[in-house]
């Protein structure tokens, strides 16, 4: 089928491929959801690095400072990966913060019960892994439950999961109470999730591995294609033959799973769990996705965007700490960043 039209398209593609690298980068920034954030992220890093090179008392590039940041990113990043998949599929889960607490407390309690505390006489090596597995399973099943209720009764997931958020928050207090819970799992679990290679904390490595896996899932797997389709135009997806119910159930399940993993990662690192520790994280995770170019109404977003969005939020937090600014500045900056990044993304796209 070598028609004139096909030849014309091939010629046009060849011509585009011959253009200079710089104009192709401009195209990338314009058309990709993460284009704006990538530029912003690089600009911030360049400025801050230049300042800290010129001014050694600004300790941004100190190994200790870098290590602190790399320790902190993973929990929010892991949660945001799951949230982004669900947002792209056109739904929300506001209960991920509550699930983060509930699942990590269940995992930690079971680890203790099964003799996996590192302080035990003969600590069990597998108990923490069993606790982790149960925690992750609860997270995934909770996500599926939210999906089934949302889809069965055809109500906005915002409402379902607003209810679920309060439910899981209450369930945490019912199961454990309000006091903090010690979590010092035995080896090798502890090394696997709470050691460092140089300045890089284990949790960061888990985050990056998951980000790569999610990148392939979302951008190169058939299922990822279906997430974009049901989130972008549900009716069209149905008409063409994508099952939106199945697709969304999977997205909810992934999101709950990641919330649980995020909570357990955080608990392992700080070696104790606060029952209220996850509150507000759901909004930070949504913020990271939006800063990274995800559309609030579905169909658009990218994994690189989520990673950069999370990293930018922690860069700002780190800078404010280095400047000894009070904590409330962080909220103010992130608030501004959300609005600015959406405005920039829209402006770039309209030009494109």
């Amino acid at each position, binding site marked *: *089928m*070598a*028609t*004139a*039209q*096909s*030849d*014309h*398209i*091939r010629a*046009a*593609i060849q011509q*585009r491929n011959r253009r200079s690298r710089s104009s192709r980068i401009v195209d990338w920034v314009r*058309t990709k959801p993460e284009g704006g954030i990538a530029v912003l992220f690089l600009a911030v890093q360049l400025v801050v690095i230049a300042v800290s090179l010129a001014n050694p008392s600004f300790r941004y590039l100190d190994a200790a400072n870098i290590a602190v940041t790399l320790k902190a990113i993973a929990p929010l990043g892991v949660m945001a990966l799951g949230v982004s998949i669900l947002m792209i599929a056109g739904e929300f889960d506001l209960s991920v913060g509550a699930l983060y607490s509930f699942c990590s407390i269940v995992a930690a309690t079971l680890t203790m019960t099964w003799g996996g505390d590192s302080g035990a006489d003969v600590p069990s090596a597998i108990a923490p892994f069993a606790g982790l597995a149960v925690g992750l399973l609860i997270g995934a099943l909770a996500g599926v439950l939210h999906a089934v209720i949302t889809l069965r009764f055809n109500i906005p997931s915002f409402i379902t999961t607003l209810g679920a958020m309060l439910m899981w928050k209450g369930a945490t207090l019912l199961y454990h109470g309000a006091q903090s819970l010690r979590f010092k799992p035995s080896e090798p679990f502890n090394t696997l999730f709470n050691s460092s290679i140089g300045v890089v904390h284990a949790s960061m490595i888990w985050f990056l591995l998951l980000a790569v896996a999610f990148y*392939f899932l979302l951008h*190169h*797997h*058939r*299922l990822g*294609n*279906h997430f*974009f*389709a049901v*989130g*972008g*135009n549900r*009716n*069209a*997806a*149905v*008409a*063409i*033959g*994508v*099952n939106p119910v199945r697709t969304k159930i999977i997205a909810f399940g992934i999101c709950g799973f990641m919330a649980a993993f995020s909570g357990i990662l955080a608990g392992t690192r700080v070696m104790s769990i606060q029952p209220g520790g996850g509150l507000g994280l759901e909004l930070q995770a949504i913020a990271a996705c939006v800063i990274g170019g995800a*559309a609030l109404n579905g*169909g*658009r977003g990218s994994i690189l965007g989520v990673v950069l969005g999370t990293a930018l939020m922690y860069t700002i937090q780190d800078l404010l700490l280095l400047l000894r600014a009070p904590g409330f500045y962080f909220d103010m900056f992130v608030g501004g960043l959300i609005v600015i990044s959406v405005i920039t993304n829209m402006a770039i796209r309209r030009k*494109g």
Partner: protein
Amino acid sequence: MSDLQIIEPEEKPIKGLRPTETPLLEMRNITKRYGAFVALNSMNFYIGRNEVVGLLGDNGAGKSTLVKMMSGINPPTSGEILANGKPVNFNSRADSEAAGIETIYQDIALVDQMSITRNIFLGREITNAFGFMDHKAMEDKAIDILGSAVQISGIEDPDKEVGFLSGGQKQAVAIARAVYFKRNILLLDEPTSALSVRETEHLLAYVRDLKNQGTSSVLVTHNLYHAFQVCDRFVVMSHGAKVYEARKEDTSIEEVTYHVIRT
């Protein structure tokens, strides 16, 4: 109350023609209700081998409802669907795909946020055994597909997001997709609403040719001249029921026009 007058519809539902051989697809006694509203009322419809059926009628007559039902995305409230004489359930797109049916929907059915290539292959991605997509193979195919049915100028990049295309370009993508994957039956629900005169002629000629290659079509249109150019049989609907049916050789454009506008 006694002076309440029952106004009979001017035209009564009719049984219409009967297929002479086993049709590719047959809808028998189909009723579709949306709550109390009856969108299709005891509708009978069939698509035979090597024919183009014109499905005509006023706005809201139920044409798209019937087309969506034959595409599997709008199951009937009651009635029977037979593919090649065998009763089938049409509960999802997968069911109609199995029967070899492709549809160009009236509302285009493309995902604006996705590229042309991804739209063309949505639900039929070319993947390896693990489900990972072969982007290169899909793009190569997409370029062939875009050149096959209608030739719309300005489509130069299969990687472009569909949301940036013009109305006609979008329609061309939807047409190209259906035309490429069609097997037994092609359903065209007002496929030329956004096309130029030249591309409309192309598409109509293409539908006529398809018949000889063994693909039957249903053409939904408000343009009776187009219908007369390509269709072998006409079905006129009104208020969810069939009110007129005739083969081309047994009728005239005036007669069909009369039945479309009088209802």
